[in-house]
């Protein structure tokens, strides 16, 4: 999860107050932000692009500029230092990704400013035409929304914040640019109208951002440019790539990969153009609304951009008018367990930067366009709970009394545990996942495909789900092989077996396995333990000889408890084959039993 550092000094400046770091941290946590820690950061300046790269004070100075990817031989030069609060971004709340958004919410809970924040999109003049080619499978990225924003002349801090917010939205809303991606440009370098069209891999060139002055083809960008290579997978399979160009043919960007160098934002830029393109309808709108509202918090003025489809239909973006949700305050009280008055609830909504219209219990709550987390009245109830503060929630009624009951296999497992502990066996717990090698090969078993197979393990440490308990015991002897023998261990746990036709294609059994390792360990050891276990369980078993590749031939038995309808106790016991012991580097004979106690599912 990305972490974003919010400067304390800047945050206080936005709030128009001076609150100590600890108070800000507490307020953020009460809002639901994940405060990772607080720290001091240093900004290092890049000699090439002039932008800064942020590092924690205790980290080594960077050798690469985050902005232009310029690789320096020497470290970048050190600039300003500041105290920051580091937050894990909340994917569900992109409106809390940046200082402006956080500040808007904090103002409410700190009592500095309440009620619905006002955002307006003034009528603008820019038009964007969408080429029908974007709707074809070969270049699919049909959705685009845009905005024009007039900003105070951008300073370095604003540039940094804008870029960081853009990256955060790419992660949180865009799913790493998969669903949508954002471009922000200096409008001074653009001549509208703008065309959203396509480019063939070798169909033209432009100078990609922060990569010198050389014009490259789209193909070359995807192969050479660091960002191009990093996101090329998003365009794989397409034969034409999305492209934004202005009326002169000046390329703005090749979404979702890279902007052009000519249209980049600079210090002092004042008129900005924003586009968000995507493969779904909602994500681009959500990203755009979140972004431009944060730009308003930085002092921006938003103007609409008209987007004209290839079939002539047109729409105007952004759409910043508040969304409305009717709710019943009685439902809110019941849901939360609050007994607050209507007036109190209305005050809480205002504190959470919402507004309420209407009198009585049935009211209508207005929320800003960027609150994309609100999709049901309960989301508004949750805001009330946050407004109250979880620590101040009233003490509650107890649930209606009910009778407890426990699972039969747990009762049985606890009895089995007691019996085996009484016999001097130590309990172990092992992972349910294991590997082919440890579960079958090392035990000389040929599984013939009858086991649960994981398709995407991150590494080779696990790739199957266990279907017996022997591996865990043998691994335990291996781990403890240098300690004094004899040793006895047991494990009670579930195994998963394939069962074609079942809902999940599997069934689960509760089993127990126990084993003794030592110079005297032999069939008699495990037979007497098995008999003892069965006796204590109130049953008796029948044994017959069995051959099993993991056991010594002639010293392995199959055990069944006959004639007991409903009781499914059966198992296998014997002396482990020396070839198996050798695979686990076990220095003494091992006698082992594995017994199925019952079917669980």
């Amino acid at each position, binding site marked *: 999860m990305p972490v974003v550092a919010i400067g304390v000094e800047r945050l206080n400046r936005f709030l128009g107050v001076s609150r100590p770091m600890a108070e800000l941290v507490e307020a953020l*946590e*009460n809002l639901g932000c994940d405060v990772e820690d607080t720290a001091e950061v240093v900004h290092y300046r890049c000699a090439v692009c002039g932008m800064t790269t942020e590092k924690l004070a205790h980290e080594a100075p960077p050798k690469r500029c985050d902005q232009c990817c310029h690789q320096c031989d020497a470290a970048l030069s050190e600039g300003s230092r500041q105290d920051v609060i580091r937050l894990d971004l909340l*994917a*569900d*709340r992109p409106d809390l990704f940046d200082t402006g958004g956080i500040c808007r919410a904090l103002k409410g809970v700190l009592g500095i400013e309440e009620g619905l924040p006002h955002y307006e999109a003034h009528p603008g003049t820019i038009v964007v035409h969408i080429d029908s080619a974007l709707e074809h499978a070969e270049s699919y990225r049909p959705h685009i929304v845009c905005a024009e924003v007039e900003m105070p002349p951008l300073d370095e801090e604003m540039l940094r914040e804008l870029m960081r917010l853009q990256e955060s939205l790419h992660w949180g809303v865009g*799913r790493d640019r998969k669903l949508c991606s954002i471009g922000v440009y200096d409008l001074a370098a653009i001549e509208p109208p703008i065309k959203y069209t396509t480019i063939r891999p070798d169909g033209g060139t432009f100078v990609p951002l922060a990569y010198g002055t050389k014009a490259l083809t789209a193909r070359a960008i995807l192969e050479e440019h660091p960002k191009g290579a990093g996101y090329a997978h998003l365009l794989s399979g397409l034969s034409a790539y999305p492209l934004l160009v202005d009326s002169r043919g000046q390329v703005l960007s090749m979404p979702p990969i890279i902007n052009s160098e000519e249209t980049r934002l600079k210090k002092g830029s004042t008129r900005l153009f924003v586009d968000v393109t995507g493969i779904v*309808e*909602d994500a681009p709108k959500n990203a755009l609304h979140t972004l431009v509202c944060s730009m308003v918090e930085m002092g921006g003025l938003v103007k609409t951009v008209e987007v004209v489809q290839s079939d002539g239909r047109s729409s105007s973006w952004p759409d910043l008018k508040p969304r409305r949700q009717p709710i019943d305050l009685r439902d809110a009280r*019941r*849901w*939360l*367990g609050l007994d607050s008055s209507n007036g109190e609830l209305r005050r809480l909504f205002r504190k959470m930067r919402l507004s309420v219209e209407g009198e009585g219990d049935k009211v209508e709550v207005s929320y800003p366009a960027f609150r994309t*987390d609100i*999709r*049901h*009245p309960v*989301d508004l109830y*949750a805001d009330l*709970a946050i407004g109250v503060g*979880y*620590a101040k929630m009233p003490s*509650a*009624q*107890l*649930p*209606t*009394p*009910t009778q*407890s*009951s426990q699972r039969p296999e747990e009762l049985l497992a606890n009895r089995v*545990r007691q019996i085996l502990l*009484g016999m001097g066996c*130590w*309990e*172990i717990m*092992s*992972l*349910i*996942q294991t590997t082919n090698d440890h579960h079958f090969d090392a035990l000389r078993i040929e599984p013939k*495909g009858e086991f649960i*197979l*994981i*398709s*995407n*393990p*991150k590494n080779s*440490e*696990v790739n199957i*789900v266990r279907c017996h308990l022997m591996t865990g015991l043998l691994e335990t002897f291996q*781990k*403890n092989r240098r*300690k004094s023998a004899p040793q006895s261990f047991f494990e009670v746990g579930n195994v*998963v077996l*394939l069962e074609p036709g079942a*809902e*999940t*294609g599997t069934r*689960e059994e509760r089993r127990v396995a126990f084993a003794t390792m030592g110079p005297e360990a032999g069939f008699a050891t495990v037979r007497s333990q098995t008999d003892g276990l069965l006796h204590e369980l109130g049953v008796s078993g029948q044994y017959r000889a069995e051959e099993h590749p993991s056991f010594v031939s002639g010293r392995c038995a199959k055990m069944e408890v006959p004639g007991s309808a409903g009781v499914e106790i059966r198992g296998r016991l014997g002396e482990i084959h020396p070839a198996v012991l050798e695979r686990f580097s076990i220095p003494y004979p091992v006698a082992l039993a594995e017994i199925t106690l019952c079917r*669980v*599912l």
Partner: protein
Amino acid sequence: MAMELNEQEHAVLSLLSRHAGSPTVGDVAQKTGLDQAQVAAVAHTAKQRGWIDVTEKKRSELSLAPGAGELIAQGLPERRFLDRMPPGQPLSMRDAAGLARELGTALNEVLRYGGQRGWFRKAGGELHLTDEGKAAAGKPAPDERALQIVAERGPIFLDELEGLGVSEGAAAKLLAKRGNVAKTKVRTFRTLALTPVGREILSGELIVKRLRSQLTSEDLTTGGWRRIELKPYDVTLAAETAVPVKSHPFQRILEQTRRAFLEMGFTEMVSPMVETAFWDFDALFQPQDHPARDMQDTFYLARPATGRLPASELVERVKRTHEDGGDTGSLGWGYRWSEDRARRMVLRTHTTATTVRALAADPNPPRKVFCVGRVFRNETITYKHLPEFTQVDGIIIDKKANFAMLLAVLKEFYRKMGFQRVKFKPAFFPYTEPSAEVFVWMDSKKTWIELGGSGVFRPEVTKPLGCDVPVLAWGLGLERLAMQRYGLGDIRTLYWTDLDWLREVPLCQ
């Protein structure tokens, strides 16, 4: 009444009554056949009872320094020099050096010790023999005689020298400066003597009991125990600690967790570890493109690759809820829901899959359900992470249920687990609203630790399953709690069992 003595006390007292003077502990040991520690123990109790007097005496013992035997056999350097020095005629220092060399000794030693004895005198660059020197010729000094005695007989107490005709004082004085030849060591002796009380007891009527360390069966069956006394022990000494066989430390926490919920009236449930994405995600209103469903985080199965979906009406309701909210009052997620993705098999990522199945199976209030089970996340094995861990999930289906009740129930659960301070922080989960992360205060570490998530199930979860009352839900991790309780820095300790660790962890921790 007859006096009871044990056999060792009797032996010591009898010996003292026969022995002339005051024998030492060593003497008594030698003569009674007891060992010195036994005699000392008897002496200690007998003294306390006033039967004997114990007197401490310090004696200096003379012994040869290591390697000094040869030197003494040859004669001390100044003695050998004296023997060879021509009488009545001084030696030039050069000749003196020559003589010393010839004798294989150092002239400075000859001069130092000979000078101290007053045998030689340096004058006008020459070495003269004094009158004392002349007188000493052929006549060993006391220290030389003492050394001879020690060389022949072994270590000797200085106070024995007089009896051998050697002046103790002179020998001690001379030897004091010659650590390379002989050493004296002060040793403490305790001598024992009967007191009049002791004598009286010995002469009275006595019952002597045998002293033993262990009762035998025969002692008990024959009544012979009456004639023996069991040796007292030093009861403060440590013994080897007995180690009972114990259940696995983590299993104890799982049991404690189960017990806590059973005490609160919950019903225990299970569900498959190998689960359809439908129950693990879709039924919980997790959109199909949600990052938690990524291959990065979730184990998908190659075998079995797909499972069966529940009744088509339920599937349809879930589908509509995802797409546009259906009749749940929600906007939904606004995408095309795919049955194929819901059919894919995963290793369950949380036991909320279990509780949501329980909810679907019987949505009628009032019900309280819990489940303790293994869950799976696609993680690499490190000291911090495992690809599987254990959760306790619970739900409360109740007309009266609300968010405040949820917080109260969780507080009660953690109180039963031994945590007095619990705090909640707002959080965001796709299937609950409001949502709270749960923290407990670790007094040992003076810090809050996060143990899981909780919330009120969204109507998008409950309504499609046929439930119209609020459902409180939580999923709490148990490994972190175990690591804190047992002070573990490595989560692998729980699942790769070290026998020594099992033995060490106390049952009550």
